């Protein structure tokens, strides 16, 4: 029992736990739509695309979240503009922007040669450095994400369910998609400090993808993803404390491992009735 409780007796681990839980909840709301709408690659690109903005903000000594948000907005704009080209498939333009933004971020960081900008911290997160005031920001971000999820639910369902005919329902598909993109941006901007720009994607989609295999309704997927995300945070922090591994990466690894566990269990579940049918 002590093995489980020990890490959380240290205040910075407690802050990390609170931060990780808040981020897991935000990611559960946004990640469910990312998985359902098939926006995983876009979500991944958005998270990597944060790097230049975060690096510039770190260099200038400004708020990292502001830099991240500006960077994500530039990324979303780029994807939208390039997406209008009938000759390029969306994954081509997303991939190019993703590589370009990541490269730009690394160039900015490498050029600065400053100890103020820690590339490893930006890429892989620094959950143990979460400060109490950042928890307040994360709580506000969670409240906004929850409001967008509740109020936009109707539009998101219609958009995801039948995007081609959504406009005949009176839905503005572009504005609904933009709102959804905003929700995803909020999630990656809020989360990158905890798990870094490279790993935020795992926390965003792994819990939701796991639940998609098990839940039958959208709110159940969100709820289950929240539980799995919180469990990943708790287990990840305990493991990283005792094994001396990087906390953000361990949290993400636990989330992805839970996905593979869930997927294996789901495939066993799907085989069982058939076996019974054959024998019975």
């Amino acid at each position: 029992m002590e093995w489980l409780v020990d890490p959380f007796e240290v205040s910075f681990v407690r802050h990390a736990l609170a931060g990780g839980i808040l981020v897991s909840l935000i990611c559960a709301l946004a990640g469910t739509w990312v998985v359902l709408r098939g926006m995983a690659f876009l979500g991944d690109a958005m998270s990597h695309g944060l790097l230049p903005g975060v690096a510039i903000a770190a260099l200038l000594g400004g708020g990292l979240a502001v830099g991240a948000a500006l960077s994500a907005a530039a990324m979303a704009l780029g994807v939208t503009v390039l997406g209008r080209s009938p000759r390029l498939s969306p994954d081509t333009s997303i991939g190019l922007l993703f590589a370009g933004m990541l490269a730009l971020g690394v160039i900015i960081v490498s050029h600065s040669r400053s100890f103020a900008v820690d590339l490893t911290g930006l890429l892989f997160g620094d959950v143990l450095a979460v400060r109490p005031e950042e928890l307040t920001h994360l709580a506000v971000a969670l409240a906004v994400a929850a409001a967008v999820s509740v109020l936009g639910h109707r539009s998101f369902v219609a958009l995801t369910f039948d995007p081609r005919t959504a406009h005949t329902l009176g839905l503005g598909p572009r504005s609904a998609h933009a709102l959804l993109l905003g929700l995803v941006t909020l999630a990656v901007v809020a989360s990158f400090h905890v798990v870094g720009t490279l790993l935020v994607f795992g926390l965003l989609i792994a819990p939701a993808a796991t639940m998609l295999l098990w839940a039958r309704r959208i709110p159940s997927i969100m709820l289950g993803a929240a539980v799995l995300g919180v469990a990943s945070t708790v287990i990840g922090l305990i493991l990283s404390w005792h094994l001396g591994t990087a906390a953000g990466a361990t949290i993400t690894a636990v989330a992805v491992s839970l996905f593979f566990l869930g997927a294996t269990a789901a495939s066993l579940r799907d085989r069982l009735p058939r076996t019974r049918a054959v024998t019975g």
Partner: protein
Amino acid sequence: MSDPVFRLSEGKVTLGGRPVLRGVDLVVGPGEVVAVLGPNGSGKSTLVRTLLGLVPLASGSVEIYGRTPQRFRDWRRIGYVPQRLTAGGGVPATVREVVASGRIARQRRFLPASAADRAAVRDALAEVELADRAGDPVQHLSGGQQQRVLIARALAGQPDTYVMDEPTAGVDAASQQALAASMRRVAGEGKTVVLVAHELGPLAPVITRVVVLTDGEIVKDGPPSIADTSQEHCHPHESVWP
């Protein structure tokens, strides 16, 4: 004089390099119950999808209540029932969620559903006899039941005009009867209906006009009686493509 519901002028549509509609003129007035008939591949579905702006015109023009589909905003007046559920990627939406999306055009964007919204969804589900399946994911329903969900979605919006793309194709007898009953009710209320079908079947009594398409052109347009003679020329297996 009020605008017609749909006005398609010289509508030409090309899909994959093949002409699918070859200069079609069609005006549908309020209160008409129009059946669009024709063999497979004659362009029936393309015609109704073009009326809604879902298929781009190669040339010609289309108006919904006097406006182009791009400028048309009053989607609450239109209830579209597509040919089948296109639930991409196994989105686990429930029957109630899908039917409730038919109310979007009537709702303030970010306000919760009103009592009227909930009542309309409840009535629509009851009308297609799926009230007991409201909480089930739509993928768990049979093809005919899914078609009834789409019809309920249109009914829930309480539109002035229904556009239905083969609502009875591949549907069990119970669902066909449920559809016919709903159609009789909306037609009796003076709503406009444009319906793609292979044959009139149980819907015949409510149809006021029949449009027959062959090879992307309207070859007959008149009272339902013309359907009897046209069916001989509209054998479903007859290929219209060279």
